[in-house]
Each structure stands twice: as C-alpha cells, then as structure tokens.
C-alpha cells in the first residue's frame, strides 16, 4: 500500500513536473473563474442558481467558432471573437432575465431551479440546431502560438495569455464592484435586496445588468476556452458542474471566493490527474462536500 502511494507520488520529486502542473492548474483555474464569477454574482444578487450558465459559456465558444472562421488565425479575428462573444451573451443574458427570470423571483426555489434547468435543455438543443452536432475547434491566433521557456520549463504562450486575461478580469471586476457607485449597489444587493430597493435604487434594472454582466463573463470565458477545448454539444453539461463546484467552495455571491476556489479547483485537478489518474474529478466533489459540511456558506460567503 505504501509502496503504491510512493509510486503514485513519484512525480512530486520532479520540480519541473510540479511547476508545469501548477501553471496548467492556474490557467484552467482562470477559465473557471470567468464562468464562476458570473454564476456567483448572479446568485448573490438574484438568489437564483443559474444552471444555464454553462450553456451561456458554450454559446460564447460557438460564437467564437463562427467569428474566427471569418479570419482564422489572425489577431483581428480572435479579438472580434472575444468582443462578439461577450457582447452577444450580454444581450442574450438581458433577454433571459427580462423575459423569463423576472417573473419568478417570488416563486419557491424549485420553480427557479426548473426554469434555469429548462434553459439548459433549450439552449443545448438550440446550439445543435444553429451550429450542428460536430465538435468545432478554434485556431490560436498566430501571435499567441508557440511556447515560452524559463528554468527548463516549456509552457504554451496561450496558457500564459489566459492567466494574464484572468488576472486582468479579476482586477477589473474588483474595481467595478469596489470603486463605482454601481458596484456599491451590487454589493448591497447581495446583503439586503429589500433595503436597497426601499432606499430608492431601481433593483429591476440592477438585476438585468448583473445577469447580463454574468452572461458576458461566461461568453468571454467560452471564447477564450474555444482554442483549447472541443467546442460541441455537451460542453455545457460538464462546464456548469465545474463552475458550480467552484462557486459552492468559494461561497455563493463572493467574487473573491470564486477566484480563490477556481484556482484551488484548477490546481487540485491538475495534480489529481497525476495522483489518481482517471478519477481526479472525485477529488473536487469530495472537496465540495467537505466544504459544504464544515462551512456551508463557502470559504468567502456570508451565512444566510
């Protein structure tokens, strides 16, 4: 038994392998952050678990597939894809909030759950109708191909780019939430929506904007992920689970929690693949269950 464990952990003595997995974990974690930050914000403000968030991510990736196809491998095409996916999803998100979610904020939990659940199926099939059933791929723009080398370590440039973008979005979100008036409203809404409304803030518009922002982040995440995942039907079913785990661990409603938990889950997955090949995903669900039992509101969440 001990021999087996030692053998399974032999890679830990190789600093190059450890550093490589760490970087891979962090870059995957940044993608997770883009989708889970929106999921967490939406839960914090609207008190709705948006199961369709994975589908929004998938739509972002599919929009990127269509837009980059116009100019494959070029920086212009890629930038257009990032902007197009974010903007497109912001519009779709606003439409979903005003058309559907707004009607059921007062309904019991199961109705909200069912509604976002129905959207998973509707958007999943809509994606098949629009983009077909094949897996698509997106070319990494020429500027970001190749790899960087340092300390005997080779790492794909695109992965480093993901880390930079993730940090930039995290800083941007922090500035918006902590340095703007609108951000104060959003944070106040996660604490007490009724009071915010009573103080004269238009919470209806705030809800729409938060949902649109969350959807736009998911769209951006999808577009950024497009070059490194197979973009096709079923992508959303897996992605939402990872994001959900992150949000539960980090604390529903906390963007900082989403960041920390994204990196944690990304890193745990990256090393879990080495420690227990094929079953690393068990680790993340076990982590989630433990956090829920010990600290049900998550690492950075506030108790109800």
């Amino acid at each position, binding site marked *: 038994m001990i021999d087996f464990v030692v053998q399974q952990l032999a890679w830990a003595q190789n600093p190059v392998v450890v550093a490589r997995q760490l970087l891979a974990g962090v870059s995957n974690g940044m993608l997770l952050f883009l989708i889970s930050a929106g999921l967490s914000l939406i839960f914090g403000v609207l008190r709705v678990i948006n199961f369709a968030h994975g589908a929004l991510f998938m739509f972002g990736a599919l929009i990127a597939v269509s837009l980059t196809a116009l100019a494959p491998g070029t920086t212009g095409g890629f930038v257009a894809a990032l902007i197009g996916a974010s903007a497109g999803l912001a519009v779709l998100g606003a439409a979903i909030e005003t058309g559907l979610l707004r009607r059921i904020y007062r309904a019991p*939990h199961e*109705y909200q759950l*069912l509604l976002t659940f129905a959207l998973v199926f509707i958007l999943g*099939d809509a994606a098949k*109708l629009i983009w077909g059933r094949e897996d698509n791929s997106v070319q990494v723009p020429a500027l970001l191909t190749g790899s960087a080398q340092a300390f005997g370590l080779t790492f794909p440039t695109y992965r480093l780019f993901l880390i930079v973008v993730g940090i930039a979005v995290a800083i941007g979100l922090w500035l918006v939430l902590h340095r703007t008036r609108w951000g104060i409203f959003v944070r106040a809404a996660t604490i007490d929506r009724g009071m915010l409304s009573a103080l004269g803030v238009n919470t209806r518009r705030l809800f729409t904007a938060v949902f649109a922002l969350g959807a736009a982040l998911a769209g951006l995440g999808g577009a950024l992920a497009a070059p490194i995942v197979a973009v096709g039907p079923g992508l959303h079913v897996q992605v939402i689970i990872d994001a959900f785990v992150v949000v539960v661990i980090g604390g529903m409603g906390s963007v900082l929690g989403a960041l920390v938990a994204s990196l944690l889950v990304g890193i745990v997955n990256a090393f879990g693949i080495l420690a227990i090949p094929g079953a690393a995903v068990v680790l993340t669900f076990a982590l989630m269950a433990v956090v829920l039992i010990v600290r049900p509101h998550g690492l950075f969440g506030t108790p109800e």
Partner: protein
Amino acid sequence: MIRVALPVLLLLGLPFALSDFWLFIAIEVLAFALYAVSFNVLLGYGGMLSFGHAAFFGVGGYAAAILIKQAGLPGGVAFALVPLVALAVSAAFALLIGYFSVQRSGIYFAMLTFAFQMLLYTIALKATSVTGGDDGMTGLKPPGLLAKPFYYYYFALALIAPALYVLYRMVNSPFGFTLRALRANPRRVQYIGVNVRAHQLVAFVISGAFAGLAGALFALSTGNVFPGWLNWTASATPIVMAVLGGVHTFLGPAVGAAVYVVLEVLISGRTEYWPLAMGVIIVALVLLMPEGLSGFARRKAA
C-alpha cells in the same frame, strides 16, 4: 367506493388492453410514479428540495444490476432478492447522505444532496470493474415468464402499490403531520420540542429507499442501468414530475410522472429534439401553472 375500485380495476386490467410496447411504457410510468411520489414526500410534505434524488434511483438500479451480475447467486435467487436489497442499499446511502444534508436547509440542502449525487456519479463512471463505467450494465432481464412485460407488469405493480400505500400512511400519520408542520414553520416545531433533524432524516431515508426500489424495478424492466441515471441532469426529472402533477397532493406527482413519460415517448418518437420540447414545456409549466396540473384542474373546475 367507486373512486377506489375504478383505478384498481384499471390498473389490473391494463395488460389486457395494451400492446407489449405500451405495457413496457406503463411499467416505466409505475416506476417513475413511485419515484416522484417518494421524492415529493420530501418536497411537498417536508419542504425539503432534494436536488440529488437521482442518487437513490440510480443506486437502486446499480444494486439490482450488481446483485444479478456479480454476486454469483443463481438467477432466480438473485432476482427474488432484488427488491429487498435495493431498498436496503438505497436506505443505507440515504442515511449517510441524509445525515450530512439535513444539517442544512433551503438551497444549501439542495446543494449538498447535489454534491453527493455527483460524487456517486463519478464513482459509477470510474469504478469500471464493478459498474461497467461509461457503458453501464446491460442484459438484466428477469428470469422465466417475468421477462415478458405482461407478467413483469403485475410483479412491479405488486411491489409499487404497497410501497405507495406505505408512503400514503406515512404522510397521514402523526409523523407525516409533524413533517408538514416542518414545512410551514421549522423553528416553531423545534420550539415545541420536536427533534427537527431526526424527523427530516427519517423522511429522507424512507424517501430514498423507495426511490431506490423504483430504480431497481425500472432497471429490470429495461434490462439496463447507466451512469447517466446518476448525473445531475437526471435529478430534475422527479422535480419536473412533482411540480407538473402538483406538489400539494399525494398522487399529483404520480400523475405528473405518467404525463411526463407518455409525452417523452410521443415526442422523442417524432423528433430528436425532445430536450428542447421538454424545456419549453417546463418553462410553460413554471410560468403558467404554478400549482401543477392538479391545481390547474381545480381552478378550472371552480
């Protein structure tokens, strides 16, 4: 009298009226009716929204499959043991999962049940030597005459009808009324001196056990069990059925199950976009019929 006699005669006479295909569907309806009603004991009576109830349906199915395929017992013996084993194994899982889950309420309860279900899903997916992994387990047909839908229908009915009766007695017992009081005002019930979590845990275990029986009976009818039964998308099914039929009546979810299963057969036979159709149906249900079919019918009649 007629209100009891008519459905009983209908259920008993069904195999003489239906083709093998529709009889097969009728068995599915029976299994899902038990599943939905057992789920609704938690939601409609106890006010506990489990988002991981597919865990028990799936565990029941896998318990049946593993017993038949891997326990090394003669076919008839293994088959005869299936209902008891499915009940016991899923009750054990429900006890473990419920113990941790009932410590929390509301949306956190839903998320805990969800987390445990996904844990079981990944185990079913990865423990290939026991569960068959991604391919699931197939070829679980019951022995002898029971392999025919005509006889299997009565076998399933003979187990599901008493199970429903037990659940019915439970929700109308003092225990059931305590459960309803918990839905209305858990804090007040606690102040009276009731052990809230113990009551919730007992309800959770009973509900999980019968969901497991439903899963086992369904697995033997189709002959298969797949890891998808444990995936998160499967946990919406009992919620849809319960809400569709109406959560505030005992048999509402059973009606919801029947409507759901028949709709699935009719629609997925015509188009591959059954999920899209179901999504639209759910949206319509949520926005237009807040009390389910039974509430809708009541309001129309009034």
